[in-house]
C-alpha cells in the first residue's frame, strides 16, 4: 500500500529533468518562461517576546529559470528570512509566494516536505551535515526521504553527486573528519542529489577560507552554466560579483535589483571552455 502510494507520488512529482548540459541560459531567458520563484508583496513579522520584529516589509522578487541571483544586505536586513521563505522552510505572514506557479500557502505540510525534497536544494552557512554519519549517508538521505526504495540506486546517485563536487575519495568520512570546504561540498552534493531545479545557498562561504571560497564559487558557476537556478545570500561583494543579478536588501525592503557589474556572461564563457559541464 505504502509502496504503491509512494511510487504514485513519484510519478506525479517527478523531479524536474536536468536541462541539457551546455544549453545557453541566455536562450532559456530569451524564451521568457514563467518565473520559477515569484515572491509577491511578502511580509514577515516575528514576535520576539512582546516586541514585534518586522523582518520583511513587503518584498517582491521574481527569479526566472536558470538565473544566478545574489541577495546581499547587512545582517538584520531580512535576507535570511527571505531565503527561508523561498526555501519553504518558513511561511510568509502576508503576501504570496508562488513556486513554479503554485502558491506555497495552499500546500500541506507533507507537500512542503516533498517540495523541499525535490525542487529545492538548500546549502547552509554552517553546513548542517548530520553528525556521526558518513558523507555518503548524508548525501543519500534526501533520496531516502524521496522514496527511492532501491538502495543500489540511492548509493549510485549519492556517489555520483559526491564525485561531482570533487569528493570521490571521501565517501566514508564523517563530517568531523572533513575540512570546512569539504563539508560544504558534501552539503552541496546533498542539495543536488535529488536533482532539484533550484539551489539556495545561505551564506555558503561564510565559514570558509578564501581558497575554499573560490572552489565553492566555481562549483556554483558550473551549476549555473548547466542551467540550474541559483540563489545565494552573501555579504561579500566579490562573492556577489559572480552572480548575474544582485538584489540588495535593507531593513526588510529591496533597495536595488540590478545586473551584476562584472556580469557573469564573459566569465561563464571562459569557465565553460575550461571545465566540463556537470
Amino acid at each position: 500500500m505504502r509502496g504503491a502510494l509512494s511510487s504514485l507520488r513519484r510519478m506525479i512529482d517527478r523531479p524536474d529533468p536536468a536541462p541539457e548540459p551546455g544549453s545557453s541560459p541566455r536562450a532559456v531567458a530569451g524564451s521568457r518562461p514563467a518565473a520559477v520563484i515569484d515572491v509577491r508583496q511578502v511580509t514577515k513579522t516575528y514576535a520576539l517576546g512582546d516586541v514585534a520584529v518586522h523582518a520583511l516589509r513587503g518584498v517582491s522578487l521574481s527569479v526566472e529559470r536558470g538565473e544566478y541571483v545574489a541577495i546581499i544586505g547587512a545582517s538584520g536586513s531580512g535576507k535570511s528570512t527571505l531565503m527561508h521563505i523561498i526555501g519553504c522552510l518558513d511561511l510568509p505572514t502576508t503576501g504570496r509566494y508562488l513556486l513554479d506557479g503554485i502558491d506555497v500557502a495552499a500546500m500541506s505540510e507533507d507537500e512542503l516536505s516533498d517540495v523541499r525534497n525535490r525542487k529545492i536544494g538548500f546549502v547552509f552557512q554552517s553546513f548542517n551535515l548530520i553528525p556521526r554519519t558518513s558523507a555518503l549517508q548524508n548525501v543519500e538521505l534526501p533520496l531516502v526521504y524521496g522514496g527511492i526504495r532501491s538502495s543500489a540506486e540511492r548509493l549510485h546517485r549519492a556517489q555520483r553527486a559526491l564525485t561531482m563536487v570533487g569528493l570521490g575519495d571521501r565517501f566514508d568520512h564523517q563530517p568531523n573528519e572533513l575540512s570546512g570546504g569539504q563539508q560544504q561540498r558534501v552539503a552541496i552534493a546533498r542539495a543536488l542529489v535529488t536533482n532539484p531545479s533550484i539551489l539556495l545557498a545561505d551564506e555558503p562561504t561564510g565559514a570558509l577560507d578564501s581558497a575554499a571560497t573560490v572552489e565553492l564559487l566555481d562549483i556554483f558557476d558550473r551549476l549555473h552554466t548547466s542551467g540550474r537556478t541559483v540563489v545565494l545570500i552573501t555579504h561579500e561583494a566579490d562573492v556577489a560579483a559572480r552572480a548575474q543579478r544582485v538584489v540588495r536588501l535593507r531593513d526588510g525592503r529591496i533597495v536595488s535589483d540590478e545586473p551584476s557589474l562584472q556580469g557573469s556572461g564573459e566569465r561563464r564563457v571562459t569557465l565553460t571552455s575550461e571545465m566540463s559541464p556537470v
Partner: protein
Amino acid sequence: MNRQNVRIALQGIAGNRLRSALTMLGIMIGVGSVILLVAVGNGSAVSIQNSIDSLGTDTLTVFAGGGFFGPGGRSTGAESQQITLTAKDVKNLEKKYNAPDVSALSPVDQDGGVTASHDGSTWTAGSFEGVYPSYASIENEQVRSGSFISEADLQEHAKVVVLGTTAVKSLFGSASDNPIGDQVNFSGTTFTVIGVLKTKGSSSIEKLDTTALIPATTMQDHYTGTSGGYSEIVASATSPTTVDAAKSEITSTLASDHGLTTTEASNDFSVESASTLISASTSSSHTFTVLLGAVAAISLLVGGIGVMNIMLVTVTERTREIGIRKAIGARRSDILGQFLVEAVLLSVLGGVLGIGAGVIGSLFKIVGVQPVIALYSVFLAFGFAILIGLFFGIYPANRAATLRPIDALRYE
C-alpha cells in the same frame, strides 16, 4: 522506508552508547524481574502442589467442628456445636453400604504436650497420635525398619510405638540408629519401639517426621480416655476420582448418626479432602504470584518512564538534526517513525536482555524456592515492554515531528 528508519534509529542508539545502555537496563530490570518473580511465585505453587500430592490425593480428613476453610472456622465456639468423633463413627463409616467409596479409615487421637524419654534423652513429641493400622496406607506412611502397628496390637491395646525420624534422632542420638525393641517412656508409660517411619522429604507440611504413633486403643487407655472422642478421622477414597463421592457419603453418614441437618453438619464437623487443600493453596499462591508480578510490573513501568525521559532528552539534543532532516525533505511521519522506532528498539533490546536475565536468574534457588518460569510471563513482560516503548515514545517522537523546520534549524 521502514528499514531506513530502523537503520537511522540504530545509528541514534549507537551514537550514545552509555545512555542507551542505561535506558535499556531500566527495561531489562523490569522485564527480568517480572519473569523472575512470577517464576518464584509459580515455583512455590509447584512445590506446595508436589508436597500435597505426596500426601495422597485420595485422602480425606474429618474434623470435629467447622472446617479449616468452611463457615465458622475450626475453632469458632459460638455457632459450632462440636460433635464427638468416636469409634462408633469409624465403625459406621467402615460399613460399605454407608460409604461405598471409602476404602480405609483410621481415627487420629492426638494428645498434646507429651514428653518422651529414653536413657536420659527427652523429646517433646510434635504429634503423639493414636491410630489404626490402616493409617499407614491412608497417609502414605512407610516403615524404614521394623513394622507398623498391626491389627493385633490394636486389639491387645499393646504398648508399642512407631517413631518418625526426628523422634529417633532426638531420643537415640542419631537418625540412622535402629531402635527396634528399645523402650521409650511417654509421660510415665513405657512403650516398645516396633518401627521407624521413612522420611517424607524436606516438605514444609507439618508433623512429617516428628510423629510418634501408637494404637488408638492404647491411646484412649492411657491418655485421652474414651469420653473425649478423636480429634480427626482420616480416610482414603477408593480412587482419586471418587474423593468427592466419598466426601458426601461421609458427611451424610455422620450427619444422620449424630442427628444433624445439613446446615448443622457444616458447622459441627467438616470433611476436607486433599483437593480442598490444593485449591486453597493454589488460590493463595496465585495471590502471591500476582503480588510479586505487580511489584515487578511497577519496575517495568519505571523503566518505561526512563525511556520517555531519554527520548525527550534525545529530541531536544537533536533538534537541529531534526531541522536538517526536514529541510532536505523529511516528512512528519519520517521523523515520527525515526524516534518511535528508536524508543521501541530501546525497549525491545532491553526486553530481550531482560528475558535472558530472568531465565538465568531463575536457574538459582531464591529464598528456598526453585523458580519455575511461567511462559505467559515471558510473553507478557516482553509485549508490555514493546507497548511501553510505543506509549512512552509517542510523545517525544510527536514533539520532534511537529517541530517547525525553521525553529528546529535555528535551535542552538
